[in-house]
């Protein structure tokens, strides 16, 4: 009987063939927790009478959600994390290094075929590297930290095939929003989502991370993208000539759902308040006045995202009624953006460039909107209250659409500037 990629990865980590619907115990390859979830991981670890880590080299704590600390409460939790890191010798990335889902791939911690858990819901992002990565809660992560394994329900798989050629001004983010629009917020609950197709093959690794990141918004347990030459070249940048073990689905693998999506007629898309699946073409909301524009996050804080924003903002000014905030996804990306002149362009256009991290995405600091204000953001969530104020309205779009909107002071079609 043929297997999906998720079935293969779980089988290799459970030490026996497993299929959708079964429950198994599997070993894990890498674990991550961030400053919003790690404090509870530590508490759960202690509650389990934890006194050792199965392998300190395979765990990383990330300071990104509220970093640098905006208040005493967060400072105390950050201290708790740092004390734990020191005590057990696990890895950490510090404030200003970047957002977890950009950093774990960038630092070379991950490989194709691996089974990864992150105490963060957007952990499926890593699936762009042809591996299985699932978001879990703090207790689940603590158990894996202690034992090196976890229980899994082997997921059924939804297969998504993107085909056709993207038009000018349309990006991976628009493909991702098309996926969320088509499947809705519960279209893939508990499912593994395999993404393939010639249109997926044509987009860069940066774009693939964007789409994998949005799989969380259709309820997916994980995303796994087909391995190709681009994946290989990317992995080689940190893995050198190490042996790589990509995983391919069997031809007779069984899927619970197969969806084909034509991207050739795709327009720039926008998710309207207050759900990610409330998606329309930019034309429908064009002209909506905005107060804040935000480019960054684990969805769209990568160099390609900053490049298109810089292209639009070059020689232009952010509209006087708009605060534009740019948060590079990592220090490495920030440095590259400096080298390429993007940061200078952002500064000269009037943007506020913050330290790498989650920025204002999750509502703890660095740009909480006021009552009734409208934000357009490159993030992955626009839930009411997401950015710290339930009276604000959040629209989600590609970096190009957000940059164009920042210039015009209203939601705008990026094709005007490209």
């Amino acid at each position, binding site marked *: 009987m043929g297997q999906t990629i998720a079935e293969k990865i779980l089988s290799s980590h459970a030490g026996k063939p497993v299929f959708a619907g079964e429950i198994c115990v599997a070993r894990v390859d890498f674990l991550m927790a961030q400053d919003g979830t790690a404090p*509870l991981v530590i508490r*759960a670890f202690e509650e389990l009478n934890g006194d050792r880590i199965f392998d300190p080299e395979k765990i990383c704590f990330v300071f990104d959600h509220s970093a640098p600390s905006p208040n005493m409460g967060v400072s105390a939790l950050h201290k708790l994390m740092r004390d734990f890191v020191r005590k057990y010798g696990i890895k950490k990335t510090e404030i200003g290094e970047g957002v977890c889902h950009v950093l774990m791939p960038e630092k070379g911690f991950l490989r194709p075929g691996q089974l990864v858990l992150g105490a963060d819901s957007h952990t499926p992002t890593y699936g762009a590297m042809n591996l299985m990565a699932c978001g879990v809660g703090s207790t689940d992560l603590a158990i894996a930290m202690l034992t090196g394994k976890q229980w899994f329900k082997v997921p059924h798989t939804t297969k998504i095939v993107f085909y056709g050629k993207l038009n000018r001004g349309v990006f991976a983010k628009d493909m991702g929003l098309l996926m969320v629009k088509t499947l809705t917020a*519960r279209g893939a*609950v508990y499912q593994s989502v395999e993404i393939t197709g010639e249109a997926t093959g044509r987009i860069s690794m940066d774009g693939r991370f964007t789409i994998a990141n949005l799989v969380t918004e259709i309820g997916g347990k994980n995303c796994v993208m087909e391995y190709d030459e681009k994946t290989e070249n990317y992995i080689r940048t940190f893995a050198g000539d190490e042996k790589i073990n990509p995983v391919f689905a069997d031809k007779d693998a069984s899927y619970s759902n197969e969806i084909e999506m034509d991207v050739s007629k795709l327009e720039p898309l926008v998710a309207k308040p207050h759900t990610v699946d409330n998606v329309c073409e930019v034309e429908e909301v064009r002209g909506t006045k905005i107060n804040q524009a935000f480019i960054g996050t684990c969805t769209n804080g990568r160099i390609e995202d900053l490049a298109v924003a810089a292209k639009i903002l070059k020689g232009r000014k952010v509209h006087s009624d708009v605060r534009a905030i740019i948060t590079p996804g990592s220090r490495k990306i920030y440095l590259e953006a400096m080298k390429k002149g993007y940061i200078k362009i952002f500064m000269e256009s009037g943007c506020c460039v913050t330290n790498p991290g989650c920025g204002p995405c999750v509502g703890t600091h660095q740009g909480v909107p006021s009552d009734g204000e409208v934000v357009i953001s490159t993030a992955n969530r626009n839930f009411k*209250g997401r950015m710290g104020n339930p009276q604000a309205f959040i629209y989600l779009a590609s970096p190009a659409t957000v940059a164009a909107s920042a210039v015009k002071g209203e939601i705008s079609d990026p094709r005007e500037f490209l």
Partner: protein
Amino acid sequence: MELTGKTHKFGDDINTDYIISGRYKFKTLDMSELAQHIFEDIDPDFSKKIGPGDFIVAGNNFGCGSSREQAVLALKYAKIGAIIAKSFARIFFRNGINVGLVLIEANTDSISQNDILRIDLAEGKIFNEAKKEIIQIRPLPDFLLKIINEGGVANYLKKYRDFQI
């Protein structure tokens, strides 16, 4: 196990930001404090309306969004007796079971706001006596029932030392 309580009804896709907003959860581990803010962004007085043992009733995909365990812990510390939904989001479901929160999958269409329900977990039934209705509970795998019976995964692992699958 038998539970009795009053219902508080919600719709589909109730996300973790609605259950407990990010602006509270990042700065404290005091779950009793978080419990006072549950559902605040969609119903500012919610925490004043609930009594110990009350039930949350919802549609599909309850608990979607963030992986924050604060969401299940805040509900537990608010003394919510059980959450009855047509379906749960994956991470929320695991988190709930791990901390010993009672999660019940059932068709919730006929349940209204402020109904009084009696739940018989052993029998797998919800009794809505005023409406003279009996609703079937979708059974959980034995492995998960064991974790719930131990009051959460920490107790389970202390007792069995490993997952018994």
